[in-house]
């Protein structure tokens, strides 16, 4: 059998995901999460008498804690399958990647398991964040002077 024929057969039997439907699902899920966190921010502002900036940090922390616990319970993977990128792009995805890689390599021990693998997925967010800060920061200092 030729390679092309094989490819055709594979394409025929691969389930086609509805691209637009997935995108709309993530739009709505991400949007709802945004609305929920704005609501949470206002609740923190009112109840804890915090300024907006500090309660913004608190909202991020709450989402991280929530996502980590849901990941450990195994619920988060089910939710990601349903809501796709709506949960990966918000900070919940960051917390999920850390907790899931820590859990996954738990069997290999505390140091070579959890220790060396905890940043396996989240590391590239931090790495490229820092690299881009140095590039953009130096450019901004040179051009705008701070």
């Amino acid at each position, binding site marked *: 059998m030729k390679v092309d024929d094989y490819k055709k057969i594979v394409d025929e039997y691969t389930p086609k995901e509805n691209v637009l439907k*997935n*995108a*709309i699902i*993530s*739009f709505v*899920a*991400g*949007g709802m*999460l*945004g*609305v929920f*966190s*704005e609501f*949470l*921010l206002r609740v923190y502002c009112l109840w804890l008498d915090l300024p907006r900036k500090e309660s*913004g*940090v608190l*909202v*991020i*922390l709450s989402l*991280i804690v929530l996502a*980590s*616990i849901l*990941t*450990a319970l195994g619920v988060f*993977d089910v939710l990601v399958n349903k809501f*796709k*990128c709506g949960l*990966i*792009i*918000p*900070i919940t*995805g*960051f*917390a999920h*990647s*850390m907790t899931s*890689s*820590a*859990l*996954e390599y*738990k069997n290999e021990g505390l140091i070579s398991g*959890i220790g060396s693998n*905890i940043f396996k997925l*989240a590391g*590239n*967010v*931090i790495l*490229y*964040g*820092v690299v*881009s*800060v140095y590039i*953009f*920061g*130096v*450019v*901004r*200092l040179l051009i705008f002077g*701070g």
Partner: protein
Amino acid sequence: MTYVYAFVFCGFLCFIAQLILDNTKLTPAHITSLFVVIGAFLDVFGIYDKIVLYAGAGALIPITSFGHLLVHGAMDMAGELGVIGLSYGIFNLTSAGISVAIIMAFLLALFFKPKH
């Protein structure tokens, strides 16, 4: 009105990410890295601050805000100390998020078993 902007902005980012994920061979790791760089880039010209003003928490939640906060902390310290301040202040604003994520991941990994 902030709720509407929060919905639209946060949803829009997820929409774009899902389109990239479905139409290219990039993994979620590629996309989150890309979005962090975009967030940092938008903050260089102060655009992201304006988005935060309108969309509130809807702009703080996506991973783009991570890049934005990194640049923000770095530039604040750079204003005081010059180029050296860039390294001093880089994690000033994001340290809370990273620390909590690390401690939660560690504690949960100790007490829970992986589920497949």
